[in-house]
């Protein structure tokens, strides 16, 4: 698929912008802070309903504006589809598909698919486990949008169960003596023992739900990782021109026996995982009540990345870490391409500047056959000439996009964007 046209209104630094795009390579060049990443971030948002840079929507709306609009015309198999998102911080987004509003924004997931690589992705290698979990879960949703629902159910269950653990904690502490017997219940009011009993029963219920939904998520991640690993090794080697044996193994919060099997790459059935989660919860129940947090489940898991015999985190060099993160994204690209029988839009934000010449050229070669590649660079010369010359290059300056080098024809049908000063203050 490819994005044929992008329209922005009050998104980031753009009061408004119209950007025409074509299949093949498009390079956006401009000095720092001119609005290159903002453009590709908007396309990423259409695909994932999230930004790769920030966790909340507020920074995405132009400073002083109330809401932002991102609209994309996407072409797949010669059929064009329009997706529109209205981003209002603090409220649910509103979405349209074609002309019709959809019930929930997540119903548009799958219309645009992107794989975006940006400097922030270095955190995949160097950052917290949450970064790697998010990578897997986001990819799951791109692969099959229905996982968005499972993921959000799981998050809700965690919140409910966490709240319950916190409420239950004092009830269980009285058992060890502290404050026991101080409170004499009135008639009809449950005694502490009864309240404890009732809390345990309720906790049981949330355990059941956590295990049921958690097992589905866990299963999906394990399968995804199994499918991703061979491509990861290939992509890393292709970029780095080594035989480095780049690997990714699942590190689970389940009890030791189960965790060991998962680390070895086994993918058990969902039912087996459900039972393993319940067993594991059983073992940490006391700790959970004491600390008031859910200690077992996909939300506590990690993926261990390694190069040869060494873990990447803490050992890999900067360039190696960078190539590893790139390898993960390129592997994701291949996986989606194979799964969906269609190319996602590949976005490479500021990638080339960090790579040595050999890696630049090999990356260029790897992406040459992708249906649409969007590249941003502060210095045009960092992008291999062959790649730049095979497609269009636009200059981005202060929120204006123009053909580069200036060519009247390309400029008019490519882009029109309004400058900040031309915008009248609206509601």
């Amino acid at each position: 698929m490819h994005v044929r046209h992008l329209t922005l209104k009050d998104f980031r630094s753009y009061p408004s912008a119209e950007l025409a795009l074509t299949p093949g390579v498009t390079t956006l060049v401009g000095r720092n802070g001119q609005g290159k990443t903002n453009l590709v971030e908007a396309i990423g948002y259409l695909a994932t309903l999230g930004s790769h840079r920030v966790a909340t929507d507020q920074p995405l709306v132009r400073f002083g504006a109330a809401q932002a609009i991102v609209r994309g015309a996407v072409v797949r198999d010669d059929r064009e589809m329009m997706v529109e998102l209205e981003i209002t911080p603090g409220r649910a987004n509103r979405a349209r598909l074609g002309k019709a509003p959809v019930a929930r924004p997540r119903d548009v997931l799958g219309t645009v698919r992107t794989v975006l690589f940006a400097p922030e992705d270095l955190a995949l290698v160097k950052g917290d486990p949450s970064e790697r979990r998010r990578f897997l879960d986001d990819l799951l949703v791109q692969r099959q949008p229905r996982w968005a629902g499972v993921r959000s159910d799981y998050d809700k269950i965690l919140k409910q169960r966490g709240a319950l653990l916190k409420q239950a904690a004092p009830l269980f502490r009285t058992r060890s003596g502290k404050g026991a017997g101080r409170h004499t219940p009135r008639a009809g009011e449950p005694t502490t023992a009864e309240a404890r009993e009732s809390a345990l029963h309720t906790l049981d219920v949330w355990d059941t739900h956590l295990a049921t939904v958690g097992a589905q998520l866990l299963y999906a991640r394990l399968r995804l990782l199994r499918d991703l690993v061979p491509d990861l090794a290939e992509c890393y080697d292709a970029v780095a021109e080594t035989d480095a044996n780049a690997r990714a193994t699942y590190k689970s919060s389940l009890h030791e026996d189960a965790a060991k099997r998962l680390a070895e790459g086994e993918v058990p059935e969902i039912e087996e995982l459900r039972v393993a989660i319940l067993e594991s919860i059983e073992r940490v129940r006391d700790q959970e009540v004491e600390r008031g947090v859910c200690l077992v489940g996909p939300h506590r898991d990690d993926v261990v990345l390694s190069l040869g015999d060494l873990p990447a985190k803490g050992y890999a060099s900067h360039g190696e870490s960078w190539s590893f993160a790139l390898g993960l994204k390129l592997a994701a690209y291949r996986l989606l391409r194979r799964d969906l029988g269609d190319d996602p839009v590949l976005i490479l934000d500021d990638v080339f500047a960090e790579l040595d010449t050999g890696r630049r050229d090999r990356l260029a070669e790897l992406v040459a056959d992708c249906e649409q590649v969007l590249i941003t660079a502060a210095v045009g010369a960092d992008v291999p000439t062959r790649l730049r010359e095979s497609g269009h290059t636009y200059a981005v300056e202060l929120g204006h996009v123009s053909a580069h080098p200036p060519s009247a024809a390309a400029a008019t049908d490519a882009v029109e964007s309004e400058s900040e000063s031309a915008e009248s203050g609206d509601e």
Partner: protein
Amino acid sequence: MYEGAVQDLIDELGRLPGVGPKSAQRIAFHLLQADAEDVTRLVTALTEVKAKVRFCEECGNVAQGERCRICADPRRDHSAICVVEEPKDVVAIERTREFRGTYHVLGGAISPIDGIGPDDLRVRELMQRLAGGEVQEVIIATDPNLEGEATATYLSRLLRTTVPDLAVTRLASGLPVGGDLEYADEVTLGRAFEGRRRVDA
């Protein structure tokens, strides 16, 4: 901010569920411009509802007397109880005309985030009704969202262990997941009723 009485009205309206500050203001000005008669009718309705309407002692549904219309009706099947979250769910199920038994209104669903546990729902009262021995079947019709499902799981386990002979069923899906029972149309809800399934706790 408006002066005295107008602001008081806006504040009161704003406390109603689903009414934000903007709507509160709009309703307040609508009332200011309305005929005195219309406002009097509204005031009477509000006073009457507080004075006359109570909650049924048996099922917890809204009622004009000690018992609601349904509990008081001898033609209803008193051996079947349909457990719902709110009185509005009773109305929704009645619309389907599928069910001839009685109801039990819990007054919400288990939701630790909102501080609602089983003891805050009318579970005790349900158990008391079952202790009579007349009831053969309980149909759990909580909302098809996470909290509703959790409540259903909790209840079915409780019923399994305390009243083993009881038939316990849960409304079949087909109901929009993540939705509210009251928004389901009659056909969907009716079908869900026909297709209710036994729950295995």
